[in-house]
């Protein structure tokens, strides 16, 4: 048995490792995606005051701290049975949509863009954002950096700081919006909408315009027929910040629609001893292992899954992009994993339109931004759509609001089984059959899991580089027979 270990996977949030086992013919027998890291937040959050949790749980992820901040404060609202005043809620939603817009752009342009605009068969030293800029032009690079900067600016303006902001607490937000701030927020909103349209245009021209990418997107190598899950508003339309969870099955039929507090009736988490992250599945179907199809409990919670779940989008430009997406892909639901990139860009435009709408709201500057809680605290669940998937915080407290039990199901975890399956399927399709294992083939394996943006990827904000693999091939005696690792890092900056 040969073994290929991809360890460490670089340019990701946290640590990751992929091990491929080859049989005697050199075909892929099995593939394991492992998360070799454990930090224990569910344990040490016990004993903490619930209002501090938005600041504490951010430290789970410095790349998407605002997602944890919002899920946590919504759980805090629920624990106290308190509703923020309209301006408080608007400020939260404005910030959150600006965050989603920036985060999606980071993933697409910094991490995945090079696969499409430079290409998997290019020299790996060129397959990064710098290579992409040299191909598409410096003005594109400047435009991307400006967009990321504007997303950071909104969060720092409303929350004091970009990494680990201090915006929200149970009952509302800490800081009101002034008319000067509103003027700038409107400018940024307009810029975000424009950037969303620009990005979709780029996708249309550069990716869909290429026969090779069209075939990769529509082909079987990157296809998994799974159930889809997402957060929707009262119209069953996508909402990143609030709503009920809706699940549609492989065929697109609704199988569940529930308020956040009912999450444990629908989701359970399987445990494997070889990775520190668990495998959530739909209880409706049960855990059947890592397989797709109608009978399986495996679901996805990604930009693609969210579009499969939503009944259209509430903003006009994104709605148009959504219709174009399903027309092109041949109807709803879509299961082509690589189409997740396209769905992410549709969401990015939607988030930009939402930022602009909130920024223009005449009552955004209302100074009434907080409701002081008066109820006795007890239990609450807060759910948001993190860029990578549904994020659930569940807190139980004593009468003082001190946590006694905490449960967290984070975005990427939802997709753990699907990521494992996607890596395995792509590896089996691409490696073996006596073919030489080339860098281009390995990059195509990487593309299988990069589509999920496993909260890994996002750490590359504006930094150069393609996701590197250390690929070591061992024979069945455990002897190293080939080292297919990427270019050395020395000298690159």
């Amino acid at each position: 048995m040969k073994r290929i270990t991809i360890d460490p996977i670089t340019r990701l949030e946290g640590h990751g490792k992929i091990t491929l086992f080859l049989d005697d013919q050199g075909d892929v027998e099995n593939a394991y995606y492992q998360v070799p890291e454990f930090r224990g937040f569910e344990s040490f959050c016990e004993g903490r005051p619930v209002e501090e949790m938005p600041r504490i749980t951010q430290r789970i992820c410095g790349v998407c701290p605002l997602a944890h901040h919002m899920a946590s404060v919504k759980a805090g609202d629920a624990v106290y049975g308190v509703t923020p005043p309209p301006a408080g809620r608007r400020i939260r939603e404005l910030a959150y949509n600006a965050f989603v817009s920036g985060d999606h752009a980071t993933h697409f342009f910094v991490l995945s863009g090079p696969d499409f605009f430079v290409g998997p068969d290019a020299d790996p030293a060129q397959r990064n954002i710098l290579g992409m800029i040299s191909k598409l032009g410096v003005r594109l690079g400047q435009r991307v950096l400006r967009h990321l900067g504007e997303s950071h600016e909104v969060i720092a303006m409303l929350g004091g700081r970009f990494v680990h902001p201090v915006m929200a607490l149970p009952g509302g937000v800490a800081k009101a919006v002034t008319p000067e701030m509103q003027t700038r927020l409107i400018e940024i909103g307009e810029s975000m909408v424009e950037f969303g349209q620009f990005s979709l245009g780029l996708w249309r021209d550069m990716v869909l315009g290429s026969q090779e990418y069209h075939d990769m997107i529509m082909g079987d190598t990157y296809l998994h027929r799974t159930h889809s899950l997402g957060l929707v508003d009262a119209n069953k339309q996508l909402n990143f910040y609030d709503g009920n969870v809706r699940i549609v099955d492989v065929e697109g039929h609704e199988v569940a629609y529930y308020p956040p507090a009912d999450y444990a009736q629908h989701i359970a988490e399987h445990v494997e001893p070889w990775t520190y992250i668990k495998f959530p599945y739909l209880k409706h179907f049960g855990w059947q292992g890592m397989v797709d199809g109608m009978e399986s409990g495996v679901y996805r919670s990604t930009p693609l899954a969210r579009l499969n779940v939503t009944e259209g989008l509430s903003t006009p430009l994104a709605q148009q992009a959504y219709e174009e997406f399903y027309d092109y892909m041949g109807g709803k639901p879509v299961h082509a994993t690589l189409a997740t990139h396209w769905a992410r860009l549709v969401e990015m435009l939607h988030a930009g339109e939402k930022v602009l709408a909130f920024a223009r709201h005449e009552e955004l500057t209302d100074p009434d931004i907080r409701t002081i809680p008066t109820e006795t605290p007890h239990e609450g669940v807060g759910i948001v759509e993190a860029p990578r998937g549904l994020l659930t915080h569940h807190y139980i407290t004593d009468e003082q609001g001190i946590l006694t039990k905490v449960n967290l199901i984070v975005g990427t975890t939802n997709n753990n089984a699907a990521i494992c399956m996607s890596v395995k399927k792509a590896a089996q399709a691409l490696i073996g059959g006596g073919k030489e294992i080339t860098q281009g083939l390995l990059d195509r394996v990487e593309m299988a899991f990069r589509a999920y943006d496993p909260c890994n990827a996002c750490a590359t904000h504006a930094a150069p580089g393609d996701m590197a693999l250390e690929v070591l091939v061992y024979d069945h005696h455990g002897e190293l027979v080939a080292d297919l690792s990427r270019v050395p890092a020395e000298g690159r900056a």
Partner: protein
Amino acid sequence: MDKLKLAVYWASSCGGCDIAIVELGEHLLELAKLADIVFWPCAMDFKYSDVEAMDDRHIDVCLFNGAIRTDEDEHIAHLLRRKSKVLVAFGSCASEGCIPGLGNIKGPDHALARAAFETPTTDNPERVMFAPRYAMPEGDLTLPALTVQLRTLEQVVPIDFTIPGCPPNHEQIWNAITAVVENRLPEAGSLLGVDPRTVCDQCPRTRLGKIQVERFFRPHEILPDPERCLLEQGLVCAGPATHAGCGALCVKAMMPCRGCYGAPDGVLDQGSELLDAIVAGMAGESDAEIRRVVSTIVDPVGTFYRFSLGASLLHALKKSPLESGQRCETQRDGARGEGEHA
């Protein structure tokens, strides 16, 4: 002059320190002119074997973020110490343990049990535990094992400097980098790039007089006056016991400081320093009055030691360095979890 050889590493961390470096923005392009980044797993291709193949002291400066939570973190800490002329504990996790240092109160066995067996959505009837080595039908899979305690970098290897903050402010990072490039390094063991005062000195709020708190409030319970000292208004604020450097970002955003820049110069234990400041600001003469005021503070350990428990004197009393680096009970050889796939 040869370009500076710079390395950036993350051990047990959230990634926010790496983002703070990316936040250098245009300075990042200047940095590319001044330094070769020889190792940065967050942003660039690398292999551990590249680092192992380097001569000792090949790296001029290594910015090490993240705490030491696993045996792998410890291994990399030793490796990078050997390969680096200057090793910097970068950010709160590496320098003082940060929020995950609160995990030392109950320890990793509690945390593993919560995650693997006990949360309401966990489905694990056979009580499978995460295993450092596990035999699958095709071969063994390995995971780094958790150590008994989360440790700071300095508790594992000698360090040269510290850049505090969760995460460090990007201006401060740039100050530190230029100090290195221009060979203006302070005395070994110092903090790099920060204002030598406390957060209170950078805070724009005004204090009316001697603080006389009659009861403490929690942040969600009151709407504080936007101009006045938060501590004076009864909100526990770590400003007086926290090193300056951030520019008082949280207090300017209407929220109290929680102390992520660590202890001020000359203070060994941030939590006891904050306790001292809080007690000094309490109203009341009799024991009963003092007791009543104290009782309005919830979660004292998690508040006073929010970021610094890992580096606190409490930690030093608890475990020897040798013990604290051992695998936790749950993951010791032969413990449940090690085994064959069913």
